[in-house]
């Protein structure tokens, strides 16, 4: 994806972990995590029209595809930033995919996962590391 030239300031909350495929992970105590796409990804995709998510109970490995995100402009696969079992999906995205654009870290979350091994996130980027990565 090309660098953003708009004047928008994109935020990367410091309590989250980020991966280079543009997903974020919020570890919420123990091995439970919420996963979605970053503000950079949402901004680059533009108007999100459709998010295809896995089924609850599905077990997926690190870097395995968990879904598809589609916008007017393009379509991209979504990848697991760490392996685990899907415990919830954001049903609201079925009728309100624009939540990804409006609030990617909040109401625009995608899946909740029981992580197999939190250590899989040790190579994930910090907010600063991810910001540097997308600025390049």
């Amino acid at each position, binding site marked *: 994806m090309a660098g953003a030239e708009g004047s928008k300031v994109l935020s990367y909350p410091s309590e989250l972990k980020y991966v280079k495929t543009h997903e974020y992970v919020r570890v919420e105590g123990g091995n439970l995590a919420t996963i979605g796409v970053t503000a950079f990804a949402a901004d680059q995709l533009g108007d999100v029209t459709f998010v295809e998510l896995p089924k609850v109970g599905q077990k997926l490995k690190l870097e395995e595809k968990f879904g598809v995100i589609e916008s*007017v*402009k393009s379509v991209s696969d979504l990848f697991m930033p760490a392996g685990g079992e899907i415990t919830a999906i954001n049903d609201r995205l079925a009728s309100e995919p624009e939540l990804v654009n409006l609030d990617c870290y909040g109401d625009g979350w995608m899946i909740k996962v029981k992580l197999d091994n939190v250590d899989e996130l040790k190579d994930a980027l910090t907010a600063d590391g991810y910001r540097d990565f997308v600025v390049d």
Partner: protein
Amino acid sequence: MTTAQLKETPLASAHRSCGARMVDFAGWNMPVQYKSIMAEHTVVRTKVGVFDVSHMGEFIVKGAGAFDFVQYMIANDLKKLSNPNTALYTQFVMPDGGTVDDLIVYRRESDFLLVVNASNIEKDWNWLAKHKSRFNDVTLDDASDRTSLLALQGPKAVALLKELVGEQVERIAGFGYGEGKAGGISISFGRTGYTGEDGFEIFVNPADAEKLWNLLLERGQKFGIEPCGLGARDTLRLEAGMPLYGHELDEQTSPLESGLGWSVKLDKGDFLGRDAMQKQKADGFAKVCACLKVEGKALPRQGYSVLKDGSPVGQVSSGSQGIFVGYPIAMAFVPPACATIGGVLAVEIRNSPALATVVKRPFYKRGPLV
């Protein structure tokens, strides 16, 4: 992003200050969107939007032989422009029936103005130059570099331009052409566009382009105007069932196959591409362009396979969300037998068939003007 070699319109810095995301389009650094393609699409359908389309090419054809020359080069009938200040949509067609480009021809007081696609300027120029020698007294002039072009589109476009230019704007019919001044800036304008809405394409000297752009945005505020990028231009033209060169038209596709038969006048006399198209019509088409309403939420995109009873029969040439109509839409080339209105096909989207119904063109048609 490497932008060093890209050409820029006089509005490049104005776009950046409007927050545009710029992309390489046919060698030009152009705004693809400002805030959101959906918002820009909607503002054109409901209010008014302004697009910079200065990358498009403008050729002026003059001389005693200009009429005969243009008539020979295009598939539509130039005789329809019996008065000056009128325009028509047409194509340059090759002797084998493939399409060189599609364009609008304006008949002005003393010349013809041809507005062509940015991606084809050089090819079109060479095509015209190659055939010019058959005609006496024809002058060909590439005015692209000294012409900027803004498209003002939407139900409020007429009201806005009327405020700036005067009552005369309202009297210009569809595909009419006029001249005037907006805030002291000399402009000329066709009541044409590429969105399916009423509106104008406004020609202006590049030196005045930014001033005109700012004037339109400022005075258009009360009408709800927004700057719109090439992203919305594409979704708007697709919803309006208009072809895009490189998608629904190319050197392997005739205007007839693309569903543009209404603009091809095979009985007007000799012109380039006529014999091939006459033969296509007599023998039957190998492929035709169908409009598909696609079920589900996944979007059909260019290159996706079209299936009939599970077997591939064609390919999507353009596809997107129909932002105003509210469902996924596509144009696709399929055999004529698969293009019957109401017929059921499928588009293969990520290995899964999405039901698609052949519908009449266009997907969206604006209501009556009054």
